């Protein structure tokens, strides 16, 4: 072990896990570098409409934390960046970070958004899950409360960068922040500990070949955007194909999960609750609509979760059907769902207007590179293996590298936040142990 120990933490991934861990470490008095791949921190949580079981909106509960991250003197957010390489060991990691070209000088950009307003080019918005109703511009910020509040240019769609035409954003920018000739650049930093919080993605709908590829067969995150009051439809429930208000909505749980023969054997753990929540929100927006949920069994394993589910059944009259859905296809204006009600032993056919598939959670493919760079052990599905399933739940096999959130396994927001706090406290005790007891203490800790 070398003489110095960098009491600074790197957090990879700016979702709710990364945000929470960053705040906890920063509040403990140590420096944090928070690296996020997209232009803003917030992760999947900030895409959600309202969250179970309290039905508060992430814009209300997460954005304050995002802003705290942005303003905290001990937190350095590196958005639109990716980890290129890591060398060294606990206390002395050397990390190379790629700053992807934003084509905007972020020191000069004030976030006024005039460029975005005037930009003539539209492109599918990743934040709106590329839904038909919510395109973004070629120069954009992913959503209104983005942190940092800066713009990036999408080089694949920008007319200036693809065809050397337009150039409007440079003309309207009051601070002359546009830099069409910007290139990626690499920064090298030194840190003493790393938390990997690269999160999840959804298993692709296309993998379930028995369900038709249709604009009105959407996944859970797409419906979250449609339900979201600040989403692309301003909270008006519309279906993607024709913008009509859907009156019969079918939710299919365990779409890809708990299917060891063809897909993923594990339970994704949040779908039972979020289907219930989305059905509830849908009913609140469309009171004369009907929500159906096909399930294997309803797993409500958190505080106030069972009560929430009961409320969905009793107050919002969600129709729960115990059985799997064998086929989904379009017939004219309707989406036909073939299912089974195993409680009555009868086949069920629903002519729906919209179908929502609760796709399985998988490790975020964008996190693969970091896992490889760090040589982290994963399970068959790519979730990071913790050092001990019970007694070392946030440590990895590598000293000084910790894991938080859905990068480790599917989990909901409360558990993610708790685990992020756990990972942060490990980093804090490592740093303060070194500070108080010197290297000897560290050696003892490392065993």
């Amino acid at each position: 072990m070398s003489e110095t120990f960098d009491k600074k933490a790197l957090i990879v991934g700016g979702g709710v896990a990364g945000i929470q861990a960053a705040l906890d470490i920063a509040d403990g008095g140590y420096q944090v570098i928070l690296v996020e791949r997209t232009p803003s921190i917030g992760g999947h949580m900030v895409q959600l409409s309202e969250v179970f079981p309290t039905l508060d909106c992430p814009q209300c509960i997460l954005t304050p934390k995002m802003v705290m991250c942005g303003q905290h003197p001990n937190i350095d957010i590196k958005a639109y960046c990716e980890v290129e390489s890591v060398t060294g060991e606990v206390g002395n990691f050397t990390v190379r970070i790629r700053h992807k070209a934003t084509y905007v000088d972020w020191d000069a950009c004030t976030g006024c958004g005039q460029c975005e307003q005037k930009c003539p080019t539209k492109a599918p918005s990743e934040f709106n899950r590329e839904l038909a109703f919510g395109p973004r511009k070629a120069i954009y910020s992913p959503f209104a409360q983005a942190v940092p509040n800066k713009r990036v240019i999408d080089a694949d769609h920008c007319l200036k960068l693809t065809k050397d035409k337009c150039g409007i954003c440079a003309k309207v920018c009051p601070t002359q922040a546009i830099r069409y000739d910007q290139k990626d650049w690499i920064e090298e930093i030194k840190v003493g500990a790393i938390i990997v919080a690269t999160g999840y993605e959804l298993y692709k709908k296309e993998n379930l070949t028995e369900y038709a590829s249709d604009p009105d067969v959407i996944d859970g995150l797409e419906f979250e955007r449609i339900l979201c009051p600040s989403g692309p439809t301003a909270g008006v429930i519309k279906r993607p194909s024709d913008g009509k208000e859907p009156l019969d909505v079918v939710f299919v749980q365990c779409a890809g999960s708990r299917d060891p023969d063809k897909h993923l054997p594990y339970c994704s753990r949040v779908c039972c609750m979020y289907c219930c929540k989305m059905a509830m929100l849908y009913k609140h927006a469309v009171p004369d609509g009907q929500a159906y949920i096909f399930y294997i069994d309803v797993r409500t394993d958190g505080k106030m979760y069972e009560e929430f589910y009961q409320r969905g059944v009793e107050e919002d009259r969600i129709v729960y059907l115990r059985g799997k859905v064998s086929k989904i296809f379009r017939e004219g204006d309707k989406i036909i769902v073939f299912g089974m009600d195993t409680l009555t032993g009868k086949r069920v056919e629903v002519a729906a207007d919209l179908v929502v598939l609760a796709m399985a959670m998988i490790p975020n493919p964008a996190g693969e590179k970091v896992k490889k760079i760090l040589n982290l052990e994963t399970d068959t599905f790519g979730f990071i293996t913790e050092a001990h399933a019970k007694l070392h739940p946030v440590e990895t096999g590598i000293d000084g590298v910790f894991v938080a959130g859905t990068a480790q396994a599917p989990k909901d927001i409360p558990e993610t936040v708790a685990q992020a706090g756990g990972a942060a406290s490990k980093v804090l005790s490592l740093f303060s142990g070194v500070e108080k007891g010197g290297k000897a203490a560290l050696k003892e800790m490392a065993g």
Partner: protein
Amino acid sequence: MKIPYYPGCTLKTKAKDLEDSAIAAAKVLGVEMEELPQWNCCGTVYSLSTDDLIHQIGPIRNLIRAKEQGSDRLVTLCSMCYNTLKRANEFFLADEEKRDRINRYMDEEMDYAGDVTVVHLLEILRDEIGMDKVKAAVKKPLTGLKVSPYYGCMLLRPASIGIDDMERPTVMEDLLRALGAEVIDDPYKTECCGAYQTVNRKDVVVTCVHSILTSAQGNGAEVVALSCPLCDFNLDNRQKDIQQAYAGFHTMPVLYFTQLMAIAFDLDESVCRFELSSQDPRPLLKSKGLIA
């Protein structure tokens, strides 16, 4: 390419149209299907009993017959035969002890090692001939003919022996496109035709087939293409019963994919044996200028 061919009982009787058109069409593509000199029943329905070795004897004997021809492959046309033969071989390979018992029981036969691969003609067309070559052999493209493929179950399930994705197969679509036809997708293409319920529960088959055909028609299909003689019986012959049960039902012709190949390859119409169809396809084919 010469390959031993197992016909099965139906192809010698009700499904003579499948056999004749298949052998003639395959020949155009250089595939010589040589009927096994001796063969017996395929077993018809694969036995799911775990301790029912006697049911595996029939299909295994047929595989031994192929081995005797010096081949490690056997091609089939009937979906039922494909399914039972292929699954029997899979069963045989999976368990050494059972393999041994079956071999010892058939002491008059040579010992069989499970090394004959059962293939369906559609697989040969897709994987060995290739759809480009099929397309090149077309003399009379099926332009303007709206065909809906129907797979049924036996070619696709269980997944371990299926010739394609069991939920969204495409092999027949690719073939029909190569023949120049307009492919109509029918979401019911893998739904059950009612199978052997046709013997004593005709009403079940009528309900199943009515959904399949009206869905295909609703999407614009003029003719259904399939590969299984039992599906063919249900989809074709049972239309008379559907007419009685559902007022306003319009009949439509049902053809084997091999008959459509024969038409597109401009072979003599006699190999198609159209007279065996319950719903005569000839008026439609004539109206499209595909037959004289």
